[in-house]
């Protein structure tokens, strides 16, 4: 029951705070004053954060709704009860703090070092693929090629980390070589769509998808059990019949933990998370504090004006795609250099989800580089909570995945919420519910408004 009280208390505090803000703002408006809140509210970043939170909450609420619906749908042998739905809600919101059940069978919560550490570990590559998508977005490009870039980098990272003998080169240097090797090949994979876009005006989405499948098949071929040139990476003599799972610790290469394993005991987290956060901050600085970032953003929001200002928009497109590719590459390097992860070639005839998940991460962060750190952590949090749901309640793993997916989906609505907050879209409930055969003037207004926006992005 303690969990419930907690939850209620939080709700009351939040509701009280929001009411206070609204009332004080109203009063100030009457007296023609501005409050600190109104001033902060005008800031773009504040609106971004607020809209992200709103979409997260909406997603979570809908996730909870599904838990209830599942209980109500009668299926044979279903073990779901109202209690499992209530447990489920608690787990969706705070499964990460779950520490098991007490003697009465109710859930207990507390600091769970394994869960939190694992969340950070899972967030590491997501931060970077999210950044990859966000950087491209800022330049007006859609990098749907992150999975391919990730996969290309996976292979090069593994090849370098496993084939350079650590008896000759210090493992740290092998690590560094493999890390940068992965970034380079990721950048290469990203730069191809960039070049096609800049020089031939081929839509980057098409080229990216093509590059994804080239990558998927190429990597599978490289490590193929029969014909792959790197099939014997783990065992150069080829005598031992090893399972074909590639793991960098085989060569003694692994990202150091640097004490993080002491804080988050028993979890997989390592120094990679710090590297990812540092990279996010670096990208933030590059985009917002340097002339190079100024150029990229100018190209992204108005290509014609950028051209007019003497900015080479072709170079911008190419470089931005190279950076995006490099970031997706770094994601793979950090993931596979962790040491506890393994790569099984059979499974990789498909494209890695972590690449695609960069898209919701970027959307949820409204393309803000530092924001991707938080949104990636949030999405991994959902994963961890989902796992708790699967282990602690009768909900099966498929339902858990569906719920996580729905929450992620709604999270991506943050841009919509931001437009609402900016007053660009007016919501009129009456209009939504009234079925209207004729197209209203209002919708036309809106359409032209979005068209204008599109033009800007193009």
């Amino acid at each position: 029951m303690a969990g419930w009280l907690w939850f209620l208390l939080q709700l009351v505090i939040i509701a009280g705070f929001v009411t206070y803000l609204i009332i004080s703002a109203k009063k100030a408006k009457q007296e023609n004053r501005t409050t600190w809140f109104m001033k902060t509210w005008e800031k773009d970043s504040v609106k971004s954060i607020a809209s992200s939170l709103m979409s997260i909450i909406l997603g979570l609420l809908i996730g909870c709704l599904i838990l209830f619906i599942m209980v109500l749908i009668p299926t044979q042998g279903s073990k779901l009860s109202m209690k499992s739905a209530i447990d489920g809600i608690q787990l969706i919101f705070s499964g990460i703090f779950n520490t098991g059940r007490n003697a009465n069978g109710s859930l207990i919560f507390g600091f769970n070092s394994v869960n939190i550490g694992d969340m950070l570990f899972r967030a590491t590559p997501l931060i970077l693929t999210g950044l990859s998508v966000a950087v491209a977005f800022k330049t007006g490009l859609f990098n749907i090629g992150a999975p391919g870039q990730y996969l290309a980098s996976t292979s090069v990272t593994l090849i370098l980390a496993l084939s350079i003998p650590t008896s000759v080169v210090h493992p740290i240097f092998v690590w560094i070589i493999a890390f940068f090797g992965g970034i380079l090949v990721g950048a290469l994979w990203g730069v191809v769509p960039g070049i096609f876009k800049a020089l031939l005006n081929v839509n980057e989405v098409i080229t990216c998808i093509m590059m994804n499948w080239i990558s998927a098949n190429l990597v599978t071929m490289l490590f193929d059990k029969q014909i792959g040139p790197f099939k014997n990476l783990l065992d150069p003599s080829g005598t031992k019949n090893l399972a074909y799972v590639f793991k960098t610790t085989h060569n003694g290469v692994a990202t150091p933990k640097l004490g993080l394993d002491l804080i988050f005991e028993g979890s997989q987290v390592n120094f990679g998370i710090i590297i990812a956060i540092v990279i996010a901050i670096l990208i933030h600085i590059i985009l917002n504090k340097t002339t190079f970032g100024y150029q990229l953003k100018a190209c992204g929001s108005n290509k014609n004006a950028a051209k007019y200002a003497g900015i080479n928009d072709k170079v911008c497109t190419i470089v931005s795609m190279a950076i995006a590719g490099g970031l997706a590459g770094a994601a793979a390097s950090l993931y596979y250099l962790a040491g506890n992860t393994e790569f099984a070639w059979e499974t990789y005839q498909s494209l890695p989800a972590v690449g695609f998940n960069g898209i919701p991460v970027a959307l949820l962060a409204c393309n803000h580089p530092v924001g991707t750190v938080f949104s990636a952590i949030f999405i991994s949090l959902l994963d961890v909570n989902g796992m708790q749901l699967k282990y602690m309640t009768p909900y099966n793993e498929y339902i858990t995945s569906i719920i996580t997916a729905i929450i992620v989906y709604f999270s991506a609505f943050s841009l919509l919420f931001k437009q609402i907050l900016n007053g660009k879209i007016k919501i009129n409930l009456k209009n939504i519910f009234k079925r209207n055969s004729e197209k209203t003037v209002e919708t036309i207004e809106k359409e032209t408004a979005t068209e204008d926006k599109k033009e800007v992005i193009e």
Partner: protein
Amino acid sequence: MENYAIEMLNITKTFGGKPANDNISLQLRKGEIHALLGENGAGKSTLMSILFGLYQADSGIIKKDGEVIEIKGPKDANKYRIGMVHQHFKLVEVFTVLENIILGSETTKFGFIQKKESREKIIKLSEEYGLNVDPDKLIENTTVGMQQRVEILKMLYRDNDILIFDEPTAVLTPQEIEELLKIMKRLAESGKSILFITHKINEILAVADRCTVLRKGQYVGTVNVSETNKVELTEMMVGRKVEFVVQKEECKPGDTVLEVNKLVVSGSKKNKNAVNNVSFKVRRGEIVCIAGIDGNGQSELAYGITGLEKIKSGSIVFNGEEITHSSVNRRNKMGLAHIPEDRHKFGLVLDFTLENNLVLKKYNEEQFQKFRFIKKDEIRKYAEELIEKFDIRSPQGPTNSARTMSGGNQQKAIIAREIDVNPELLIAVQPTRGLDVGAIEFIHKQIVAQRDLGKAVLLFSLELDEVMNLSDRILVMYEGEIVGELDPKQTTVNELGLYMAGTKNNVKGDN
């Protein structure tokens, strides 16, 4: 008590704490043309957007025929028969005129659009008001003037009787303006009530019955047009006297700065070059003006010289260096400044702040960056200087997003940026489009000052007044070629018109 068609009483609207409309009242009589006059950023568009339901007023009421009404969106406005022609048209390029007009109020039978009835209605309306539109033409193949008439038809088709025109004449040629004014008169005679925003006082004197003046978001007064004159209206609006004729000294041309030789630019039309074999020179200390009716290759010529469009053949020499195929960046660095024709397409990054737009061509300079890191404070300081010097008005000052600035102030920001790079050659394409008379006077003075500093100025203008007033030498363009070279002191507006229409030519045989 008089019964007004529309009354807007004590309207106040603030954006982020800054009032754009401060207790403004406006009464529109039935069947009158009511002009709305005010400086850039005075709040005219805001007031009209409130009437059309795009914004909600913070306080104040709107009455129609004496009854209080509430307009929550364009749909409500339509219900009360209020229509608006926006400054930037809202037409679907790939639809026909007919489809654009009926969009949003299609008559349907079993879910199929009944075009026949609509077509008849449109043709009838078009004839009734002399609008002369072809319902089956695609919008992308029509002229700006035609698009405007389509917007007017859109309002008439919906039986609107309150018609709002937001700066309709800013984008039209003098001929089209004359036609539009006639149409407006006809509409008013048939009982429609019209609200008309313009910066051109002559137009107000020509068609309006009454005129309401706003200044800095406040109501100044309403006057009967028959009892006033240009000088008085200007004073009401700006709060001081404005000189309409630019005072300038004799022109003393120096060395050649720009030399254009047999230039050909292909443009968008097939099998016809937009710019065909054009040659001319611009010297230090003179203002050369390219005049002509819109669409005769002036835009392409400007884009060709500034490097935004590729050159097919011919050459451009700038300060002794050939720049025919140089990058835009190179041209900018050599001292070429460009006030572009289309401020939203080229002139501004609308999502950037005003200050970031003001350094669009300078962000890379020593003053604003160190080791490629942007010096934010320097940019702020510089932006504040320019805002002060060029009187750029925006509620949030340098940090205002360019998108929410008023049209005229966006233009002033571009002009400030381009003049302040201290150029060798200033290419100004319709620099005063959408500016109020006070701002026009100021900009004209700035352009003359540039000339007197020994800079070369190449001006493109559609306004005959501006051409005659400002230039030292006029080149007339017709169908992509230069057909006349005139001295403004020795020519008349009539003669200029003949050249522009292509009936006269004094550079024959010269190619």
